[in-house]
């Protein structure tokens, strides 16, 4: 049977790249792209940085210029959610009552910002950040000299804290764990980030949970679980993401904290694929099943799912790559560092530019560092090629990484 209609649910980065890739691979059939936002597909990294600060216009985040998007000849349905999948008749129902038949369905439904289950979490002045609209709303509220409380010392929280400091706000970050970005970086980097933020005037409270938020005069008051109170004018909640897998679950697809797929991006239904923040798969670099919430994965898995839908053999296992921009620091991470790896540092870990290698046996399996994009690019090559390395040479800044 030939594939004539491919429906993509989710008009974010994964969905946008899926649509683009179908055309790049020569698919001449109909592509329907369902998105619940008014925007054509865009990249989310600038939302906590240049767009939030007002330095960049929303247009700069779009994957395609308007003409290039038109040239894809996609039947784009903005501002509508998908409400149900009928896997027997291969039809997708939309919230506006319409239905669309599909030969292949690619679910790129992403996720939504987790909200706090505490009293006062819905008060005016409490924000989350996921969409262009969120960025515009929060950006408007971020006025110099206002007091911002960031709940959650992860990537979103820290990037917003940095942007807010640049805009002249007074910023406090509270994090429930004992260190920043605890899930993704080793303790040395948590300390580095803490030092960076403290040096820029951000107050950091670790091991501090917020018990409730209350309105207080024209602002808000956060009560911590040790009884302390923090007064603020606005609150950004950055406590993680919930996968939008309800559509898939209701259709009976296998889900496990997200839509379960294989390395070909196929779900438990042979005609339904998934990609991006919502997809759970066996990540060989991590050695476990997981979702990977990253710009790179949204792009690469969107591409892989589109190719897979066309019958091309794919194996979605790119070396995970993540970066964050905070103040004058660009921190990049390749691979999945874990405590079991031996750490080798190249350069001075107390400085503003160094590389930390994570060694398993004779191989580098991960590398990270601030302001070291060029060295990390070579590190990526060492990791991907599984080059045997001598840790002493890695640490020697006199030996160019290109030579290893």
């Amino acid at each position: 049977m030939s594939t004539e209609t491919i429906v993509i649910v989710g008009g974010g980065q994964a969905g946008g790249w899926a649509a683009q890739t179908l055309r790049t691979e020569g698919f001449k059939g109909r592509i329907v792209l369902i998105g619940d936002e008014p925007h054509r597909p865009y990249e989310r990294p600038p939302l906590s940085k240049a767009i939030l600060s007002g330095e960049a216009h929303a247009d700069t985040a779009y994957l395609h210029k308007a003409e290039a998007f038109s040239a894809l000849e996609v039947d784009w349905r903005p501002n509508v959610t998908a409400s149900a999948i009928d896997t027997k008749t291969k039809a997708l129902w939309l919230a506006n009552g319409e239905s669309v038949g599909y030969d292949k369905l690619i679910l790129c439904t992403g996720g939504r910002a987790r909200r706090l289950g505490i009293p006062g979490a819905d008060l005016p002045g409490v924000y989350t950040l996921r969409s262009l609209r969120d960025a515009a709303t929060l950006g408007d509220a971020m006025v110099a000299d206002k007091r911002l409380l960031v709940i959650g010392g992860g990537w979103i929280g820290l990037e917003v804290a940095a942007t807010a400091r640049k805009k002249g706000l007074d910023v406090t970050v509270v994090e429930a764990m004992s260190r920043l970005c605890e899930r993704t970086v080793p303790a040395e980097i948590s300390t580095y980030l803490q030092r960076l933020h403290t040096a820029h005037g951000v107050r950091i409270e670790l091991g501090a949970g917020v018990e409730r938020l209350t309105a207080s005069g024209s602002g808000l008051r956060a009560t911590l679980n040790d009884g302390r109170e923090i007064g603020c004018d606005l609150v950004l909640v950055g406590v993680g993401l919930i996968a939008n897998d309800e559509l898939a679950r209701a259709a009976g697809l296998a889900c496990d904290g997200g839509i379960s797929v294989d390395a070909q991006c196929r779900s438990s239904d042979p005609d339904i694929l998934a990609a991006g923040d919502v997809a759970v798969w066996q990540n060989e670099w991590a050695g476990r099943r997981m979702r990977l919430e990253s710009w790179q994965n949204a792009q690469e898995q969107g591409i892989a799912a589109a190719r897979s839908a066309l019958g091309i053999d794919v194996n979605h296992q790119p070396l995970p790559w993540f970066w964050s921009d905070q103040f004058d620091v660009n921190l990049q991470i390749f691979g999945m560092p874990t405590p079991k790896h031996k750490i080798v540092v190249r350069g001075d870990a107390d400085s503003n530019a160094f590389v930390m290698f994570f060694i398993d046996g004779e191989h580098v399996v991960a590398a990270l560092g601030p302001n070291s994009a060029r060295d990390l690019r070579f590190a990526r090559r060492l990791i991907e090629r599984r080059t045997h390395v001598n840790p002493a040479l890695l640490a020697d800044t006199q030996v160019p990484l290109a030579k290893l």
Partner: protein
Amino acid sequence: MSDSQWTDAAPLDEVPADDVIGMIVDGRDIALYNVEGEIYATDNLCTHGHARLCEGFLEGHEIECPLHQGKFDVRNGAPTCAPVTEAIRSYPVKIEAGRVFLSLG
């Protein structure tokens, strides 16, 4: 094409073997590439994140942007790898008397 359309960009030996350099030619930010002795020229700014390609990585005929690892074919400027969707401009090159000339048109 008359000679007057060719702009002297750089001495040939300033473009390192199998690498890329950036330079301003007639007010334009240009990347010059040397792939196995063959010289190519494109605009230097990536069409995605506006990083300078001369700080990127040249592998074969592909230049990889240092910011988000998009790639272009240095021979014609065509995008070859996500996230770039838009080509960069490439320029005709000629080598004369040990110098690189570009037709910036």
